[in-house]
C-alpha cells in the first residue's frame, strides 16, 4: 500500500475467527430453540442474533476500525426503530381499558369467509403472556 492511504488491512485470521464464532453462534441459535424459557424465549433468541449481528457489523463491516460517526449513524437507526416499535405496541397493548368492546376480536366470520375456514369458528385466541393475561385485540374498523 502506498500513496498516503491509511487503510488497515485486517489479518486473515481475524476474519476466519469471526466466521467460526458466527458458525458456533448459529449452532447455539438452533440449540436454544429446543428449550422453553417461557416469556424469555424471544429475549434469548434476539440476544444471540444481536451478538452475531454485532460481530458482522464490527468486524466484517469494519465499524470497529472506522470513523465513529458511521457507528453512531448505524446505532441511531435502531433508536428510531425502537421508538416505532414502542409507541405502536403501547397502543396495541392498552386498547380496551375504558371501553372493553375495543379490545375484542371480530368473533364471527362474515358469510363470504376466507378460504380454508369453511363454516368453522375456531375458539377465541388466547393471548401472549407479556400482556399479563388480559385480552387485547384490534378494534373493528370504525374510522
Amino acid at each position, binding site marked *: 500500500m502506498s500513496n498516503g492511504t491509511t487503510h488497515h488491512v485486517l489479518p486473515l485470521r481475524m476474519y476466519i475467527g469471526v466466521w467460526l464464532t458466527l458458525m458456533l453462534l448459529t449452532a447455539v441459535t438452533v440449540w436454544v430453540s429446543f428449550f422453553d424459557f417461557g416469556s424469555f424465549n424471544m429475549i434469548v433468541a434476539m440476544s444471540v442474533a444481536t451478538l452475531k449481528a454485532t460481530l458482522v457489523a464490527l468486524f466484517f463491516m469494519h465499524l470497529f476500525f472506522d470513523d465513529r*460517526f458511521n457507528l453512531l449513524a448505524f446505532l441511531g*437507526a435502531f433508536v*428510531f426503530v425502537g*421508538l*416505532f416499535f414502542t*409507541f*405502536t405496541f*403501547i*397502543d*396495541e*397493548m*392498552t*386498547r*380496551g*381499558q*375504558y371501553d372493553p368492546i*375495543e379490545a375484542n*376480536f*371480530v368473533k364471527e*366470520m*362474515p358469510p363470504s369467509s*376466507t378460504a380454508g375456514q369453511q363454516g368453522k369458528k375456531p375458539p377465541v385466541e388466547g393471548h401472549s403472556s407479556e400482556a399479563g393475561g388480559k385480552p387485547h385485540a*384490534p*378494534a*373493528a*374498523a*370504525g*374510522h
Partner: protein
Amino acid sequence: MNKGPTSSAAPGSAEPVVHGQGGLSYLNASHGIKSWIFTLDHKRIGVMYLVFVLFAFMMGGTFALLLRLELLTPGRDLVDADTYNKFFTLHGAIMVFLFIIPSIPAALGNFILPIQLGAADVAFPRLNLASLYIYAVGAIFALYAMISGGVDTGWTFYTPYSTSTSTAVVPMVMAAFILGFSSIFTGINFIATIHKLRPAGMTMFRMPLFLWALYATSIIQILATPVLAITLLLLGVERWLGVGIFDPAMGGDPILFQHFFWFYSHPAVYIMILPGMGIISELIAAFSHKTIFGYRAVALSSIALALLGFLVWGHHLFVSGQSEFASTVFSFLTFTVAIPSAIKVFNWLATLYRGSIMLATPMLYALAFLFLFTIGGLTGVFLGALSVNIHLTDTYFVVAHFHYVMMGGTVIAFVGGLHYWWPKMTGRMYPEPIAKVVCAIIFVGFNLTFFTQFIMGAKGMPRRYYSYLPEYQPWHVMSTVGSWIIGLGFLIMLVYLLWSLRRGPIAPANPWGALTLEWQTSSPPPLENFKHTPVVSGGPYDFPDET
C-alpha cells in the same frame, strides 16, 4: 471586527465581479439539451428540479381551484361526488409528494447548499442526477394514475377503503414509493456533503442556518421515508394478495396502517417546514443587516425538531380507535414539539429588533411567514390537545391549520427564497414593485381562503365533504373567492418571473449586501462555483455592528 466568511476578497469589495454576460457561468458553460439531461452540475440539477416542482405546484393548485369551485354551493356545481373525491386526493398527493417535499431541498437546496458551504459540488453528483431521474419516473407514475381514473382515497390512503376501492391506487402508491427514493438520495447527498466537503474554517457552527435546516431535514428524510416505502409496499401487497394485515375480518388491524403511515408522514411535515425555516433565517439576517439572535439555539432547534418530530405521530390517530393511554402520551409529546419552533420564532423577532430593516420582496415574504406560521403552529397546539381534538378532528379547522403551516409557512418561505436567490440563479433581477404587490395579493388571498376555514371548522364543517348544510355556504364562498385571489397572485408571479429572465435588470454578485458565501461569487455563478476556494474566517452573519 468580524468580516464574516470571505473568499479572497472582503464582501462587496473591489474584486471585479463576473456577470452573466461576458463571463462564463454555469448557464452558458455548455449548450444543448444533452448538456442538461446528463449534467452533473448541482446548479443545473437544481434548476431542473425547480421547473418540475413549479409544474407540480400548478397542477396541484389547479385541482385546488377546481375543488373550491365545486364547493361554491352545497349541490353539484361542476362534478359529481366521486370526482370531487378524486380532486381533493390528487390535490393532496401531488402537493405533498411532487411539490412540497422536494421543493426547497431539491430545487433551492441543490443549487445553494454547495455554494453556501464553499464546496464545488455535492458529495455524489451522479446520485444527485439519479435523484432527479427518479423524481421524473415517479411523476410519470403519478400522471398515469391521474389519467387512468384517479384516486379517491384521500392522500392518506387509509385502509380498508384503499385496499378495496377500484380506483388507481396502485400506480399512485408506486409513484409515492419511487418519489420517496428521490427524497432519500437527496438526504444522503446532503448529509455526506455537509460532513465531508466543508472548506477550511467552515466549522459546523459557522455554517449558515439554511444548511443546518437542510441537514436536519436530511436526517428525517433518511429515517422516515423508508417507513413510508414499506407502508406503501404493504398496501400494494394487501391489494394484490389480500394478505389481510390491515383487514379485521382476516385478523388484521386497520389502525396499524395508520401507525405505519403517520410514522413517516408526521416527520414528513418537518421535512416540509424545516428548510422553509432555514430560508427565513437567511432572509431575516440579510434584510435586518444583523446577525441572527441566538444562532446556536436556532441551529440546534432544527435538530431538536427533527428528532422530536418522530415522537408525536399518534396525534393523527386520536379518534381512530387508538387506545386512550397512547393518545394521552402522544398529546403530551405533541406539546413539546412546539417548543423548538417557538424558539426560532422568538429568535427571529429578536433579530428584527433594532435591525436595519430593508423591506425588499424576500423580506416581505419572511414577515408574512412569521405571522402565518405562528397562527399555523399555535393552531397545531390546539389540535394537539386531546379533548379539543375530538371536536375539531376531520373538520376544516385541521385543513386550515395545515394550510397555514404548509402554505403560509413553507410555500411563503419557498417563494421568499426564490426571490432572494433569483438574481444568483439567473443573473437577473425580478421587477421589485410588482413583486411586492403580488406578495400583498397572495397574503390577502391566503387569509381569505383559510381563515374562513378555521371558523367553518370550529362551527363543525367536516373536511373532504362534497356537500354541506346551507349555513356554511357564506364561508365557502369567501374561501373560494380567496382561492381565486391566490391563483391570480401566482399567475402574475409566473409572468413577471419569466419576463425577468429575458428583460430583467442584470443582477450584481451581491444585490442584498448579504455575507453568506453564495454572494461572494458571481451572479450567476461559474461552473465550479468559485474562482478561488473560499477560506472561512468568521460566522455567516457577522454584519458590522451599526449601533
